[in-house]
């Protein structure tokens, strides 16, 4: 005898309504994508025919949809790239030795500096259509998202639990089955988390890549970013306000309709086998699991899925050859080492040749000096952001109620593209006569500081309650409490936040050291301005030199400073 209705009954009850909602939602989505996607095939023949941006706020939903579509296309490519690159790097010891250092460097290269190169390339690829610009913008977003995701996937593949690997090996799963049953699921939680964070960062690049000037030529793609750009040129503050509001709504919508359901779904891929604390929730995910249609479609597709599985399994059957010959291994190892040295020497010779034939060594020194200036700005930013936000973050983190309330707000602020706020700040600098040499620090910090804040919150939350009670018990207070408990406790989280903030600030320097309001342009002395100016006039040697120098700075600081702190955090302050 049952006293309570079973979950199945409860589930069946509102299923009709849920199914209706899903059908409706799917239709609306398809219609939107068709409508917006058609815009990418607009005629485009510079300089005569270029797309026009209409400042009427009623156009904003359309522009927002165009920008969002770009983001999702980039995300799809990032995912595909991640799965392939990460898989190869994790599976082949030879590929790994090349692919992983390469990834490390690519990650440090300022994406925005590349825009000029990719824009001209893609326009040549699709003559007479906007697709070229579209592709360049998507590529810029792609490069801002993909490295994080790839690293995460590669790391997950390298740290698969040994017994699970043995189980699937002994049960003779094919390469394909291994991939879909073990490798991708095990990587899923980290992959989705990283994709979500990178996606937030991607809005910055949407805004920056839709309206750029390359080779003395303004290129404009219809989208939110170019709307902002047009409003700035028209010195129209109310229109800017509308754009800001639209951006905020879009970020919230994407979060509710896409990321939240995905995070809720991916919770089942957690490797810890105990029932965790609070499982993430999403109303849309609940709707999808309640409705019958997705399950019906699933059942209907089952036979063809089965067939595909068998076909792919047949193609990826595991073959067992002879054990590897150690002598041959060593020979290949030597060859690879020699090849990489040859490559390094080749690149070195090319750099010397490039510098002497084009810009000269004086220019190298100049960019190095400019790099030091930008480095100073980034450092001042990090110090200030730490001094201001760490105590606030710790206070929030120690108060669970407050943390639950504020954490989504902080994540929203981090995802909000800071360059949408630049016009307001620029106007402020002009009115108050603040020098852009200092003001650019504030601009950079608009995007970067939030990483410090929310990592401080997370760090404070990770300090065990026992330790905090002990601190009260032995009477630690004031600076002593910080010295003995809080700073060691949040150190690893702070390092993570610092690395991200510093990378973001370097990238942002290209757009924040040089800003405009109407016809007024403010320029700070720094490597960012150097790259932006070289890009505007299409001076290839200087673009290359600028990007190279900036990459060198970022890689160098990561190696000399952040990596050491990271090691310290891992070894000494690991909670």
């Amino acid at each position, binding site marked *: 005898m049952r006293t309570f209705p079973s979950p199945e009954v409860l589930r069946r009850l509102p299923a009709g309504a849920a199914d209706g909602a899903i059908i409706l939602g799917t239709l609306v989505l398809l219609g939107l994508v068709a409508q917006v996607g058609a815009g990418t095939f607009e005629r485009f023949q510079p300089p005569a025919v270029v797309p026009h941006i209409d400042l009427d706020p009623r156009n904003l939903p359309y522009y927002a949809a165009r920008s969002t579509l770009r983001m999702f296309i980039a995300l799809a490519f990032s995912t595909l790239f991640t799965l392939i690159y990460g898989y190869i790097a994790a599976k082949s010891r030879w590929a790994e030795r090349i692919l992983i250092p390469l990834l490390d460097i690519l990650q440090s290269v300022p994406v925005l500096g590349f825009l000029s190169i990719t824009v001209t390339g893609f326009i040549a690829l699709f003559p007479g259509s906007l697709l070229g610009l579209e592709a360049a913008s998507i590529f810029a977003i792609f490069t801002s998202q993909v490295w994080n995701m790839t690293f995460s996937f590669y790391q997950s593949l390298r740290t698969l639990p040994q017994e*699970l690997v*043995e*189980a699937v090996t002994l*049960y003779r799963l094919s390469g394909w089955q291994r991939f879909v049953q073990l490798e991708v699921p095990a990587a*899923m939680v980290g992959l989705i988390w990283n994709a979500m964070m990178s996606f937030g960062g991607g809005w910055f690049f949407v805004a920056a890549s839709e309206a750029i000037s390359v080779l003395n030529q303004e290129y404009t793609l219809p989208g939110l970013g170019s709307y902002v750009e047009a409003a700035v040129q028209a010195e129209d503050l109310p229109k800017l306000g509308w754009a800001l509001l639209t951006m905020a709504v879009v970020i919230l919508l994407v979060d509710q309709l896409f990321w939240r359901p995905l995070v809720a779904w991916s919770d089942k*891929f957690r490797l810890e*086998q105990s029932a965790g604390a609070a499982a993430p929730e999403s109303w849309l995910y609940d709707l999808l699991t309640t409705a019958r249609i997705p399950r019906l479609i699933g059942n209907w597709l089952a036979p063809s899925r*089965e067939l595909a599985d068998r076909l792919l399994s*047949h193609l990826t059957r595991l073959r067992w050859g002879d054990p590897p010959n150690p002598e041959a291994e060593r020979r290949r190892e030597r060859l690879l080492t020699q090849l990489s040295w040859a490559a390094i020497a080749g690149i070195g010779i090319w750099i010397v040749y490039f510098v002497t034939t084009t810009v000269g060594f004086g220019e190298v020194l100049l960019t190095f000096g400019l790099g030091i200036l930008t480095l100073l700005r980034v450092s001042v930013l990090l110090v200030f952001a730490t001094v201001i936000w760490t105590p606030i973050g710790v206070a929030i983190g120690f108060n669970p109620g407050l943390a639950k309330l504020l954490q989504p707000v902080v994540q929203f602020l981090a995802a909000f593209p800071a360059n949408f706020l630049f016009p307001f700040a620029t106007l402020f600098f002009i009115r108050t006569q603040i020098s852009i040499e200092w003001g650019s620090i504030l601009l950079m910090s608009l995007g970067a500081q939030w990483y410090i804040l929310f990592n401080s919150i997370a760090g404070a939350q990770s300090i065990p309650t026992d330790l905090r009670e002990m601190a009260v018990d032995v009477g630690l207070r004031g600076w002593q409490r910080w010295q003995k408990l809080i700073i060691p406790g949040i150190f690893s989280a702070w390092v993570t936040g610092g690395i991200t903030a510093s990378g973001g600030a370097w990238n942002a320097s290209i757009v924040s050291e040089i800003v405009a309001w109407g016809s007024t342009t403010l320029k700070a002395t720094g490597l960012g301005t150097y790259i932006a100016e070289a890009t505007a006039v299409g001076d290839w040697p200087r673009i290359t030199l600028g990007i190279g120098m900036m990459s060198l700075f970022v890689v160098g600081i990561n190696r000399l400073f952040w990596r050491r702190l990271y090691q310290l955090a891992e070894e000494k302050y690991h909670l």
Partner: protein
Amino acid sequence: MSSAASPVLIEVEKVYKRFPLPEGKGEFTVLSQIDLQVRAGEVLALLGRSGSGKSTLLRIMAGLIPPSEGRVLSNGRPLRGPNPDVAMVFQSFALLPWLTVQENVELGLQAQGIPRQIRRQRALKAIDLVGLDGFENAYPKELSGGMKQRVGFARAFVLEPKVLFMDEPFSALDVLTAENLRGEIDELWNTQAFPSQSILIVTHNIEEAVFLADRVVILGSNPGRIRGEVKIDLPRPHERTDPRFKSLVDYIYEIMTNPEIPVTGEVAVPSRVGSRAPSPYALPLPHARVGGISGLLELIVEWPQGRVEIAELAERLQLAVDDLLPILDAAVLLGFAEVTGRVVQLTEIGQDFANTTILRSKDLFRQQLLARVPVFKSILQTLEEKNSRSMRADFFLDLWDEHFPHEEAERQFATAVDWGRYAELFEYDASEERLYLPDPSESSAASEPVGLDSRSG
């Protein structure tokens, strides 16, 4: 049930396994000259302490890792790749958390390309067999440890392997759950309803081995090798109350605590083998904390005359061999206890150590360390030769590295630091990774060269 006439299912022939030591310092032998047969109809247990390579041997037989030398025949054919005649039950269950119980059980069948309907039926039958019907659609994280391992068994049963491998299948469960599941598996085997022809179980639990197995193969350590085997000549099921059961357990305890005894099936008198020490760093320190050693001694001293049977001690402590034996080894190495046959007896110094104050026990510990464990004298000498009276940890680690794989070298170092610190022979600064001689002005006790007496050597 088994006899020499039963067909051989898996045969291991002269198998060696070696791992390269770091920086090309030669090799570390994990398994040496293993010959072993698994016959149809028998339950075979591999019993050994940690470091005896028993799990490595199991994985070589399962085809998960290749041997360095020798070969494995399965069903008469040499193994290349995973052994198709084997299914394995893992220590930590190895379930995929994103698949339901049913999907987990179907995993191996899916890999064989068996159609969905048949797959489903066979999986349901296996789930039924382990008593999990009703949980087909549950996810592993909703299940208790015991139920998870039942899924592990169902996943292996459904393949109907010739030999079922179990890698310490009950050691991740709590005592009662383990007892219960072990009993059920044994019952299933005894009723002839078992889905495989033989069982090979790896364990460090002596009682478990005697309870389940028809034949217990004893592995020795450093390097892992077969010391011999003990036939469990009891009617199935093996009743724990049977006096013969108890004497078999006692006998195996005796063998395991006395590495020099040849395994014949009869008790032999232990013979002292003259120690040969090429380098003080080659002699492995048993991994026991000082706290564990003194705890054990304080417990033994409670028994009349400080004498107790090892099996009784283990039962009292609820400790598996893996946990008890290193502590016992350490006590013997330091001269606090002696093991004769199946009995452990405290020495005079051991009794003194167990009863005295902390300061005095530190003195005793230091005295015994310097007298009986040559590596400590060597470390002290090195430190004293330095003007700074300190030395990088790397230096010592390198010395251990020459005799052990790096991980083991690090454990040796950690144990040495634990002992040396307690004895106040030296100090270790973890952030600088240096060993220091203690400052003579701070502690008078440490500066006295206690124990550097004639007894060493």
